[in-house]
């Protein structure tokens, strides 16, 4: 083997160590880049040419992205549930704040004051101030119920508008993935593994998995197909958009459909799933509860009130409340204008008779709700406790999922993340390799000098 071969081998070694140091430099630069996977240099020995016993040095075979696809898959699964639970927990916490229980300022207290004002009226039915107090308490009850109804509706509105943002983000991510698919397939065709582009795409997939229950599949040409609800969201280089269509039957809130053909999209989990659940289930069922309670109170109070006689001793059959549920409840305009119309008396022409006011007050302790098994107070207590249970469950699920996700993240980092100390060791190693290769070149040079000038 000639000396020039040795020079060549040493030069290849110099280049290989240099490229390896480039990789170290790339890794160190991206130590804090989200979603970055460290890259490992692939070096291999050059096999000896036929007939020669000694190998031809080192060959630089490119860089490899270090990544555990199974951990990625696990993590995306868990992120769907985490996103859904956290979104629900956030809105349910706001809903329970709207009820401000337990306290002396919530609907419970207002309800007690309302029925107690009827008891006061029964004690002094002739007294104008007791009558005004009933109207006042009735109005306070109506306003409080309306405000609660409004509070829950506002939360539904905000879930709907956040849904619009999230769907826009999902469409955007799908297009990004399609574009990256195109870049990755063409760069791979040219022999480059395209590690950094894959990192970007993985980051987009991570976020997409947080948004909705997508599944994905990597093809042999390097592109990734994403499936949502049984249909392709991304297929090769094409992304299929989701459109939001206002549904008149659901408060004009948006339904999710495929922009292509208008078919319905069902999103069961992820942030979008969580927003849909809170908008159409969590908050809606509490609104239904609230309206059931208020509607029952309106019906019962009006029926009892209509049976009695007003201060003039002859007027009967009037309603106390107007409206049908929590959205439009108010004290009847005629009664509000003239509290003398309050039917405190059971008997006609009996100014001192407050027994009908007592009959109205007695509704508070009657089992009129849930097929005659619950009072207003216990039904309301159940309503508040159901919100509390839902908020607590969503929060503990969100906490548990966050913990799982953070463990998986750590696992992923332990495979794919950059450790600066490790890179420093590699750096020293490659630096020494470079120095050694340079030393060989000097040795060969000296040998050539000996050969040419001293012989």
């Amino acid at each position: 083997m000639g000396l020039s071969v040795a020079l060549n081998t040493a030069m290849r070694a110099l280049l290989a160590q240099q490229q390896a140091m480039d990789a170290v430099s790339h890794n160190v630069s991206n130590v804090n880049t989200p979603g970055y996977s460290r890259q490992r240099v692939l070096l291999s020995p050059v096999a000896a040419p036929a007939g020669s016993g000694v190998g031809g040095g080192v060959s630089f075979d490119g860089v490899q992205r270090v990544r555990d696809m199974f951990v990625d898959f696990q993590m995306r699964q868990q992120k769907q549930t985490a996103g859904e639970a956290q979104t629900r927990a956030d809105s349910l916490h706001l809903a329970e704040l709207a009820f401000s229980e337990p306290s002396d300022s919530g609907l419970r207290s207002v309800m007690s004051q309302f029925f107690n004002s009827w008891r006061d009226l029964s004690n002094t039915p002739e007294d104008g101030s007791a009558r005004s107090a009933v109207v006042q308490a009735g109005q306070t009850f109506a306003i409080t119920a309306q405000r609660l109804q409004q509070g829950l509706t506002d939360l539904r509105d905000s879930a709907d508008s956040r849904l619009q943002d999230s769907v826009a983000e999902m469409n955007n991510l799908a297009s990004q993935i399609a574009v990256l698919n195109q870049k990755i397939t063409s760069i791979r065709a040219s022999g480059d593994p395209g590690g950094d582009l894959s990192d970007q795409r993985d980051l987009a997939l991570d976020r997409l998995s947080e948004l909705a229950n997508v599944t994905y599949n990597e093809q042999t040409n390097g592109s990734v197909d994403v499936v949502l609800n049984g249909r392709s969201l991304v297929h090769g280089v094409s992304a299929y958009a989701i459109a939001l269509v206002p549904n008149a039957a659901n408060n004009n809130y948006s339904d999710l459909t495929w922009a292509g053909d208008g078919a319905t999209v069902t999103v069961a989990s992820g942030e979008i799933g969580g927003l849909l659940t809170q908008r159409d289930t969590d908050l809606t069922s509490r609104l239904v509860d609230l309206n059931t309670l208020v509607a029952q109170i309106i019906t019962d109070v009006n029926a009892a009130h209509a049976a009695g006689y007003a201060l003039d001793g002859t007027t009967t059959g009037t309603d106390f409340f107007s409206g049908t549920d929590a959205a439009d409840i108010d004290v009847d305009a005629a009664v509000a204008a003239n509290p003398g119309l309050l039917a405190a008396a059971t008997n006609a022409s009996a100014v001192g008779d407050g027994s009908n006011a007592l009959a109205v007050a007695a509704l508070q302790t009657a089992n009129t709700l849930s097929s005659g098994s619950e009072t207003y107070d216990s039904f309301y207590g159940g309503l508040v406790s159901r919100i509390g249970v839902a908020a607590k469950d969503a929060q503990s699920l969100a906490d548990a999922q966050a913990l799982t996700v953070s463990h998986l993240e750590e696992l992923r980092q332990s495979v794919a993340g950059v450790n600066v100390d490790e890179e420093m060791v590699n750096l020293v190693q490659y630096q020494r390799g470079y120095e050694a290769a340079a030393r060989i070149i000097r040795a060969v040079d000296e040998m050539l000098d000996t050969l040419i000038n001293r012989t």
Partner: protein
Amino acid sequence: MRVTNQSMSTRLLSSIQTAQSRLSDTQDRVASGRRINRPSDDPFGTSRSIAAHASIDLIAQYQRTITLARSELGSTESVLTSLGDVIQRARELAVQADSSSIDGAGRRQIAAEVNQLLSEAIKLGNTSYAGRHIFAGQQTQTAPFVEDVPGQPATVTYQGDVGQVQREIGEGDQVAVNLDGDEIFTPVFQDLIAFRDALNTNDMNGVSAASGNMGTNLDTVLQARGEIGARTRRLDLADTRLGDVTLQLQTSISSIEDADMSQEVVDLQTRETALQAALAATGRSLTTSLLDFLR
């Protein structure tokens, strides 16, 4: 497991955040003194507390009503005492007039006093308390007794009704605070008028009947006072019972809602220590690097 710079800082950050959020929960409870600051802190406890608060409000209302009813019964009682005095005086006059030592002129003088007693009795029957005529049944805005000739009535007409004025002192528990004015007063008026007229006309049969009649009326009044006393005792019993229930409810609300302060303060200190430890660990871990040793 392989540790990386990102995973280390993420883990350290999450330990700090966990420690901070646990500390903040305890701080909330210590500052508010409450275990339940929102329903999700204890959903079942919240619904029990809502029920207990509703009962307490209801009981407070019953107790207010009991106070009112007690004063109403008290005013009825004092009217009956005065009426008893009037009847008692009439009976004394009846005994005095039913004597041969008194002549017609003397009896006419006594008749004048009886007429005064009658006016007094009518005034008592028309007593109003807190703007309500208490012997008029449910016609509380109408004076119940009207004289045909003011000052010298031959008949007194009852204008009230037999309606009872009920006060709710417990769930489904009502006490009437009025008595039937017609039943108590009308016989007294009739007997006083008859006595007065007998004295004026020197009708000795009428005069001697008066003493017995007044005795009967006195019995009626005493019976009515007994009835008032019985009702007042019922109010007292209900009041005591409601007070006991309130105490129980308050104890149970406190055990549901209030934080166990000594426990919370201990937790607060433990959690502060945990946060400090997390911060110290972070401070030390982040500064250690191989770079310090490669010179």
